[in-house]
């Protein structure tokens, strides 16, 4: 064995303390750096993809043309308009970006702090490294503060990247007076995003010492998505409207510096909430036993029995809880859409021009039915979430190999091929289970509202099939190359396809690129319109993915 001299310094240098292994803060920040750049970059891409066409396209070349376009958009029913932001100064680049992108951006970006802060201490405690860290002469409070501080710094860094992109979009694509976005406005806007991003994560951080990482993650996600949906759909129903004070999206709705209005008091209040939650997490970490959680075994979702019959049932049982959770979340979102379908249809009926436009884009879709409304308002975002859920199941599937359980399993008379085939099928079954839960919930919603139920349920099945197709690609890569790649590949495909579908046309990408999205080839399934070629292709991806996964796992080394 060779031994390289270690590079231990008696006193770590300042750079190492800030961004290196010289301190807990430095190491955490170093570990978060790539994520910060990716988050800032993806958020910037949304701004660029929306702002560049708005500034450059001749359709928006004059104030009058913009007003006409905006009049059409703002005439959209609340169900659609709510998912966008506050319509303030939409004739300007900043106002338009804030309205079109700024509302859902904190939801997407907020996933990062929730995932990171739920596990920043609890995850390390679970693997045992926190024992070693906590045995160093750093108080627990210092460790927790340094870790949280590093994550907040990483969020700030991501937001600085976003602010630079926002400013650049205004500077390079401004066409009309007022299109330029001052750097102060861009910074003011990203401060809001940063504070909103952190809220869900701070809640996860506060609760993780008490309930463990998984439940804390769930709490953060629920608060993040629920706040967004309550705010977005408040005007559709008095019941939802009554919940508005609970949504932190609504607290800060008046702060849109890019659009020229500010409400720093609301941002400061939300920031105080974040700080209080983070402080609770720090104190809890300081005072509670390391790695211990409260007796909250009762706080769990219904799941399947242990699943010890074989690799299929084991895989399905392990993934069932999270599959049901995803199913409930997506299903409740679908119910919200169904509940507002009638209002949506009425609004459309009162706007003949919009109705004609929708008929042109979505031929054959009957907007008087919940199925048509679901196709219009649920299918796009739903497909993205379905595939992200599938990626999370594959992360669990890969952990069998990553955590070396597979080596024990394969010392039994279970062949590699048999394990791969059955466990991969078990992962697919988890997607089917989630699809079933979504279908049941949305089906119940439609039954209570009235309307065609067959087409939406078939459409939900197609969503499940498409997610399974992406998972098939992930499984193939996981089997052939490395199991841990399966979830990443699936998630990247989901994000890339979502970006392609939402920004591709605006960026004037060639049609051949736009057609790469599988959702372009599935028809309008929620409305009962199917394209057999796309469905066959998706099925081939599912079967082929599992087959390639099986083939790969029989050929390569285990534990790579």
């Amino acid at each position, binding site marked *: *064995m*060779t*031994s*390289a*001299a*270690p*590079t*231990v*310094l*008696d*006193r*770590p240098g300042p750079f*190492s303390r800030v961004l290196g*292994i*010289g*301190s*807990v803060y430095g*190491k955490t920040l170093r*570990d978060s750096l790539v994520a910060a750049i990716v988050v800032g970059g993806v958020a910037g891409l949304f701004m660029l993809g929306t702002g560049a066409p708005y500034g450059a396209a001749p359709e928006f070349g004059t104030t009058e043309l913009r007003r006409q376009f905006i009049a059409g958009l703002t005439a959209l029913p609340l169900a659609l308009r709510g998912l966008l932001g506050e319509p303030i100064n939409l004739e300007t680049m900043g106002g338009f970006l804030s309205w079109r992108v700024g509302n859902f951006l904190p939801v997407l970006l907020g996933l990062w702090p929730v995932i990171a802060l739920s596990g920043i201490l609890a995850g390390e405690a679970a*693997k*045992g*490294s926190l*024992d*070693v*860290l*906590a*045995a*160093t*002469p*750093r*108080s*627990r409070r210092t460790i927790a503060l340094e870790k949280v501080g590093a994550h907040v710094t990483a969020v700030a860094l991501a937001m600085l990247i976003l602010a630079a992109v926002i400013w650049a979009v205004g500077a390079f694509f401004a066409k009309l007076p007022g299109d330029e976005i001052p750097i102060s406005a861009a910074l003011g806007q990203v401060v809001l995003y940063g504070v909103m991003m952190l809220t869900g994560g701070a809640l996860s951080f506060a609760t993780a010492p008490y309930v463990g990482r998984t439940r804390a993650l769930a709490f953060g996600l629920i608060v993040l998505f629920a706040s967004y949906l309550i705010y977005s759909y408040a005007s559709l129903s008095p019941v939802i409207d009554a919940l508005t004070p609970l949504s932190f999206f609504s607290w800060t709705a008046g702060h849109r510096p890019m659009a020229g209005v500010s409400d720093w008091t609301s941002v400061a209040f939300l920031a105080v909430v974040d700080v209080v939650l983070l402080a609770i997490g720090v104190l809890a970490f300081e005072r509670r*036993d*390391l*790695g*211990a959680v409260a*007796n909250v075994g009762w706080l769990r979702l219904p799941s399947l029995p242990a699943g010890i019959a074989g690799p299929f049932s084991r895989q399905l049982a392990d993934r069932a809880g999270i599959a049901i959770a995803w199913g409930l979340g997506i299903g409740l979102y679908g119910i919200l859409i169904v509940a507002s379908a009638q209002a949506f249809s009425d609004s459309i009926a009162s706007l003949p021009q919009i109705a004609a436009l929708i008929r042109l884009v979505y031929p054959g879709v009957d907007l008087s039915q919940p199925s048509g409304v679901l196709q219009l308002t649920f299918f796009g975002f739903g497909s993205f979430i379905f595939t992200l859920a599938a990626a999370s199941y594959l992360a669990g599937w890969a952990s069998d190999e990553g955590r070396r359980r597979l080596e024990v399993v394969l010392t039994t008379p279970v062949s590699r091929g048999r394990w791969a085939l059955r466990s991969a099928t078990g992962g697919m079954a988890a997607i089917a289970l989630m699809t079933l839960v979504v279908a049941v919930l949305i089906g119940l919603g439609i039954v209570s509202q009235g309307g065609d139920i067959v087409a939406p349920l078939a459409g939900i099945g197609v969503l499940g099939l498409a997610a399974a197709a992406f998972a098939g690609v992930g499984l193939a890569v996981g089997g052939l190359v490395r199991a841990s790649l399966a979830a990443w590949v699936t998630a990247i495909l989901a994000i890339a396809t979502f970006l392609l579908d939402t920004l591709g046309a605006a960026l004037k990408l060639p049609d051949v690129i736009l057609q790469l999205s599988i959702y372009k080839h599935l028809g309008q399934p929620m409305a009962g319109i199917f394209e057999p070629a796309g469905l066959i292709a998706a099925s081939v991806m599912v079967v082929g993915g599992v087959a390639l996964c099986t083939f790969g796992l029989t050929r390569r080394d285990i534990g790579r």
Partner: protein
Amino acid sequence: MTAVIRTERLTKSYGDHRGIIDLDLEVAEGETFGFLGPNGAGKTTTMRVLLDLIRPTSGRAEVFGIETTTDPVAIHRRVGYLPGEFDLYDRLSGADTIAYFGNLRGGVDRAYVARLVDALELDTSRRFKEYSKGNKQKVGLIVALQHRPDLLILDEPTAGLDPLVQQTFFALVREAHDEGRTIFLSSHIIDEVDRTCERVAIIREGRLVQVDRIEAIRELAFHHVELTFRGPVDPAAFAGLAGVSDVEAQGHLITLRVSGPIGAVISVAAAHGIVDVVSREPNLEDVFLAQYGEHATDAGAGA
């Protein structure tokens, strides 16, 4: 001598589950102290309480005269800890891992770290996740030792190490002892404790059952002996020998248990035409059960 570790009626429970119960323990400065017990007896729980990683349910624990919950950082400053099970940072190399913890402590002697790396024959250029279990253990040992702590708390330190590296480890422990440092070492392997420790505590089902010099514990040990003869031999020839018990005959084979010197047994066996002899050292559980029985959990514990 000053007590480096002192616990008084220390109890830790996890809800309905037992951790440790009324533990009274004292480890003197400069002592190498073994903490023996079967799996799940409460060894790790005790160590984690001493480091304030978990808090006592009742009773108290002091390290260096400081109550563990009062100023853990002051304790940690003088302690090196190797957990029984741990996983560090997958993406850091061995050198970076060692450097990281060295940085968190400060004042680490670079030359000493290099010596530890050489002594344990660790390739520090590889990522932590690429290490075998034994090499991960080596990294953990270096992290625990690198700052020359006044107190080493080592939870099953030789797990996963090959015999040669174990020798190196024992040499490092001896060196630490010679420098006057205190070592608190848990194990379920008698031989490991026998080779390194001056005093030993035995813990079972969360309770301390004995604290004594290693020589006294050693006296508890016995051997299972199997004697094979050319033909059948009357077991009564062995039954009366000092320290011999549980004699059983099965054709040409006689099995018995021997406490203390085995010379008399060999002499009698030789006179009866012995063909083969097999002697097995029992594990701690066997020794313990033989001495204290299934339900024994209380004894004259104390320093």
